């Protein structure tokens, strides 16, 4: 079985071809057009720019993913003609998977309408995937070509990105329960905003990660919001404000030199990692999962990965810890294709998908 995945929920345009044979999978291609360079100019993401760029990119990205995936569709890449006739024997894609939400509506629509068009023209069933579900499965992609059905339930997933910070309990395949989430800013957003306050550029995550390595995390004692709250919710807004006051103060005293900035980065990162790790450990204690999964853009942060791994390993040695490969931490289409695979058993292939009724859902819940 081959699944073509399409992901355009925010600033990335991505397509991937995933092959599944006898419960083993093989990622044939995974193409991402990172638009970071364009957005960097604006210190953020510009929705119109993102969506317009995606419209320009999507067919090229699809072609590349299909070509690298050695897939027979489209039939004649040279002429760039998609086969219009249904039941074309040259098509070996069994399903098309696309992100439905959450995300920016203008960006989501690009991927969804492209997927619908392909599904209609080529008579290939369409599967809509929640972006967050994709991040949950992204850690499985790292296992490579081993049997991927090894996910043992219940599983606990921590999703950390620019738009999300949540803890999800998965009792069995497809059954998700959000047991904790951010009450204000997402952790990736806090990284971006702290970087902005420190005038370091965009995206803030990788910059702070890098500078923090050269800084002293004990120099500034920043707050750990909600670390002692008796629930699994997060708050990062107050931490951002604390950085703001600290920077203002240091600027006044003319003490904001390069080393001090590095120390602030290290102290800030340490506060975030501390909160995320502490809450994860309480969740594990409470729900006793057999598997822990990390996902989302912030899971590329070295300090977070190491800290979570060490602490869980020490306190709960029996838990299987799944961390995504760095290349699968950001938005990608391989995770969308894999998440869709778990739905395929429930889809009646002979029946036409009800795609006409489905549209982008920017605020969709897991």
């Amino acid at each position, binding site marked *: 079985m081959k699944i073509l995945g399409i992901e355009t929920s925010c600033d990335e345009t991505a397509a991937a071809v995933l092959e599944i044979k006898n419960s083993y999978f093989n990622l044939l291609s995974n193409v991402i057009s990172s638009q970071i360079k364009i957005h960097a100019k604006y210190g953020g993401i510009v929705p119109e720019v993102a969506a317009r760029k995606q419209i320009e990119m999507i067919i090229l990205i699809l072609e590349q993913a299909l070509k690298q995936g050695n897939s027979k569709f489209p039939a004649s890449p040279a002429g760039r003609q998609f086969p219009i006739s249904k039941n074309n024997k040259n098509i070996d894609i069994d399903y098309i998977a696309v992100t439905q939400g959450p995300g920016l509506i203008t960006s989501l629509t690009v991927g969804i309408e492209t997927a619908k068009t392909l599904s209609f023209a080529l008579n290939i069933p369409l599967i809509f995937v929640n972006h967050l579900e994709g991040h949950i499965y992204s850690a499985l992609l790292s296992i490579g070509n081993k049997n991927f059905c090894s996910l043992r339930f219940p599983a606990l997933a921590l999703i950390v990105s620019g738009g999300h910070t949540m803890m999800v309990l998965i009792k069995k395949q497809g059954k998700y329960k959000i047991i904790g989430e951010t009450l204000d800013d*997402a952790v990736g957003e806090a990284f971006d905003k702290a970087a902005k306050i420190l005038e370091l550029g965009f995206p803030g995550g990788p910059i702070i990660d890098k500078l923090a390595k050269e800084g002293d995390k004990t120099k500034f004692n920043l707050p750990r919001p909600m670390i002692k709250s008796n629930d699994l919710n997060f708050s990062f807004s107050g931490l951002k404000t604390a950085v*703001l*006051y600290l920077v203002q103060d240091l600027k006044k005293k003319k003490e904001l030199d390069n080393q001090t900035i590095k120390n602030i980065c290290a102290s800030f990162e340490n506060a975030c990692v501390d909160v995320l790790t502490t809450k994860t450990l309480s969740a594990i204690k409470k729900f006793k999962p057999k598997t822990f999964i990390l996902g989302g853009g912030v899971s590329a942060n070295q300090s977070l990965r190491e800290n979570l791994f060490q602490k869980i390993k020490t306190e709960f040695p029996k838990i299987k810890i799944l961390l995504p490969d760095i290349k699968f931490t950001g938005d990608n289409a391989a995770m969308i294709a894999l998440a869709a695979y778990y739905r395929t058993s429930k889809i009646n292939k002979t029946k036409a998908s009800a795609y006409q009724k489905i549209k982008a859902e920017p605020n969709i819940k897991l």
Partner: protein
Amino acid sequence: MKKYITHNPEETKQIAAALAHNFQGGEVLGLTGNLGAGKTNFVQGLAKCLDIKKQVNSPTFVLIKLYPTKNKKIKLLVHIDCYRLNQPEELLSFGIEEYLNDKRCLTVIEWADKIEKILPEKTIWIKFKLGKNIEEREIEIK
């Protein structure tokens, strides 16, 4: 013009709730002020007054978040964040005009000064300022 000093996030929420109490629907609130000045907090207060159970958190990433309510007059809280925006016109592609003109919506916009030119006359401007200490905030309602 009214001016308030709040001493903690809870007081900021209370001011929002008191203000929302008199709303009839169709209001547009333009929030301005620096990072960490209490804007999202204020919106959480509005949501509480409208009895919205869903957690209201930062819309920076998706730009718009919608919260349906069970309120008789205000059926939808529209939470917009222009932090990442560059041009006001970019928001028009999201169809925000429909919300701005809808009597059943309460539209609240963070970093509203960035899109001032596309906002209606009726916009109530609320300015947030950092106070003397980390908890204190100044809120000015026009």
